[in-house]
């Protein structure tokens, strides 16, 4: 009985082993070949801003095609996750929609992790769209004050006098408004609430924060979750990176006396008129975005996303990080992001500064 049982056991066992070997013998169909001229190899682990996701997909693909032995992983789990992961040493680099916050100790934590001041360069500039789902209303004009009231739950119907006053021609129904916000920590939320608190003429009473401050409205996880929730619910309105809103309608926001639709150019213009935060250290290119600008054509509801990295890394990792980051801020990289994610390429001056900073990355 023993013998036969073992023999019976052997057949499926051998089959399973054979299957295992067959699987491990060959990689995926698309992972063979590629450019073998590159000397770089290894794995980079990054995480952070989900707004950057599309752009990062393009950058990773472009970089991995040039360097076939390199794998770059990027988990679009949110800026908060990126910064914390980087500061604990779990990540090689982070993407964040908000610069490191000195008041929360993030700058110090990054310094401890790197052993020196962390590097921070902008890599992705993109407008944040106020997207909505309302049948028969294709254009919608909103001031920051009205947007504040909607997201604070003070305006609950689409035909509220405040909205009608700004859109005299639109056929606004009397249905309820469902404001959709992010349930996770997000740099998009921080930029959005920063815009509302600066430009909302006092209608937004909460400070700028990565965490959505109120509990009313619908909560959705990640940029994609917000888009999905707006698409699923008639009468919903939410905020998300413009590159990801797809075919949803987007509102124009009031800048000066005009209403401006989100666009890469508008975001780039808003960035150009914003000063660099000079309280920062040498390798830290944080920009203080001027949300109240009245510059014609500027779209101040935009996010500037940053790459956060260390000035020094162990061994070969330094070259890897340096090469990848340089690729991102290079003209090619920025153009690829613009094609793929609809972002605005960095202004020339900023791009050159960023490249200089990345060049200082070295091995320990």
């Amino acid at each position: 009985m023993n013998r036969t049982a073992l023999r019976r056991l052997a057949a499926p066992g051998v089959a399973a082993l054979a299957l295992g070997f067959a699987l491990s013998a060959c990689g995926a169909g698309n992972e063979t070949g590629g450019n073998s001229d590159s000397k770089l190899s290894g794995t980079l682990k990054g995480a952070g801003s989900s707004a950057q996701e599309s752009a990062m997909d393009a950058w990773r693909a472009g970089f991995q095609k040039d360097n076939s032995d390199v794998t770059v992983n990027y988990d679009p789990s949110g800026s908060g996750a990126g910064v914390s992961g980087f500061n604990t040493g779990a990540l090689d680099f982070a993407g964040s929609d908000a610069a490191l916050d000195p008041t929360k100790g993030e700058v110090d934590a990054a310094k401890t992790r790197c052993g020196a001041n962390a590097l921070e360069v902008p890599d992705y500039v993109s407008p944040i769209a106020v997207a909505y789902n309302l049948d028969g209303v294709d254009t919608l004009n909103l001031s920051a004050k009205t947007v504040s009231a909607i997201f604070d739950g003070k305006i609950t119907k689409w035909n509220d006098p405040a909205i009608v006053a700004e859109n005299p021609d639109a056929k606004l129904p009397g249905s309820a408004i469902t404001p959709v916000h992010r349930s996770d920590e997000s740099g998009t939320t921080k930029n959005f609430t920063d815009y509302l608190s600066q430009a909302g003429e006092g209608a937004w009473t909460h400070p700028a924060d990565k965490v959505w401050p109120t509990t009313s409205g619908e909560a959705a996880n990640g940029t994609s979750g917000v888009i999905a929730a707006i698409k699923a619910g008639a009468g919903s309105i939410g905020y998300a990176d413009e590159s990801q809103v797809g075919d949803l309608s987007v509102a124009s926001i009031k800048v000066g006396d005009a209403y401006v639709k989100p666009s890469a150019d508008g975001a780039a213009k808003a960035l150009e008129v914003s000063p660099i935060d000079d309280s920062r250290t040498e390798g830290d290119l944080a920009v203080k975005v001027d949300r109240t600008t009245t510059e014609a054509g500027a779209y101040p509801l935009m996010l500037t996303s940053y790459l956060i990295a260390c000035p020094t890394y162990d061994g070969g990792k330094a070259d890897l990080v340096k090469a990848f980051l340089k690729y991102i801020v290079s003209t090619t990289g920025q153009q690829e992001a613009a094609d793929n994610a609809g972002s605005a390429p960095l202004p020339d001056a900023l791009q050159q500064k960023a490249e200089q900073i990345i060049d200082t990355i070295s091995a320990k």
Partner: protein
Amino acid sequence: MTDLATAPETHQHVPLRHPRLPAFAPLLAAGIAAAAAALIGMTLSWNLTGIVALAIVIHLVGLTLWSRTVENARAATDRLVTSLVWVALLIAMIPLVSLIWKVVQEGSPALNAKFLTWSMRNVIGEPGGIYHAIVGTLIITLAATVISVPIGLLSAIYLVEYGDQSKLARWIRFLVDVMTGIPSIVAGLFAYALFSILFGPGTQMGFGGGVALSLLMIPIVVRSAEEMLKLVPADLREASYALGVPKWRTIIKVVLPTAMGGIITGVTLAVARVIGETAPLLIICGGTDSVNFNPFHGQMASLPVFIYSSYTQPGSNPEILKTMAWGAALVLIIIVMALNLVARLAGKFFAPKRGR
């Protein structure tokens, strides 16, 4: 018999049976209810769900009233409960049918050779493949099996052959039962905390997933193996002892081979149970676009996490990735069903011959 024959026939006509509805009454009532509901529903232009709900209500009320007038109150209650039981069954089957239908309908367009042999590395704006996730799932599950089977099997042997009714054995048995109820996310948190302490904060690797899953798998293995070992007849053991074979050799050479079929079934079912776990892998394994064959280094993709992240974080091409998520769900269900089938077949194939 004789009693019946000699029973007085002078009595007035007393029916021996209560009047009964014909056997086809429930079906007839159902048919009438469906027709009536369809008629009402169509005139009021309801959707299918409304019509079906109305039909059920008409059927329940109608049949009960009919039975009450013809039969009696007790019979009416009986018919009502019978109908309710069948309605419950019907309602319970709706989600299963709609789930399978939806997954097949949404997932089958994604299935093709490329889907199964490509990874998502360097794939933008077009459908890629889930090869990396399949490989990851197999490796992680294999790791979990390698950890759970020895521990689970040996524990079961202890419980049946050595511990029996000792205090330790009773505690193990009881806590294993309780352990089957550990939420999977807690197992993930445990593995994360453990690996953070051992290998530095934020460590993510495929083997960690194996550890987390084994925590969920061990109790299932122990329970099924224990049941199977108990079924081995004592005669076999006694015979072996009588031949002077030591106990440990008896267990390995006689008891285990006899119970092998059931144990393999149990292990396969346990694998089927944990192969679809998402929450722990999300925390401890992370995700990647590329194939990773090394369970001890770097993030590893898996089918459930791929489904979750593709559906909830699809990025700029949501339609493509959502279709892929449904396709991956279909592949995962097929794998799970296949494992269940294998388990049943193994149970039959390895069953000890009963011809003594």
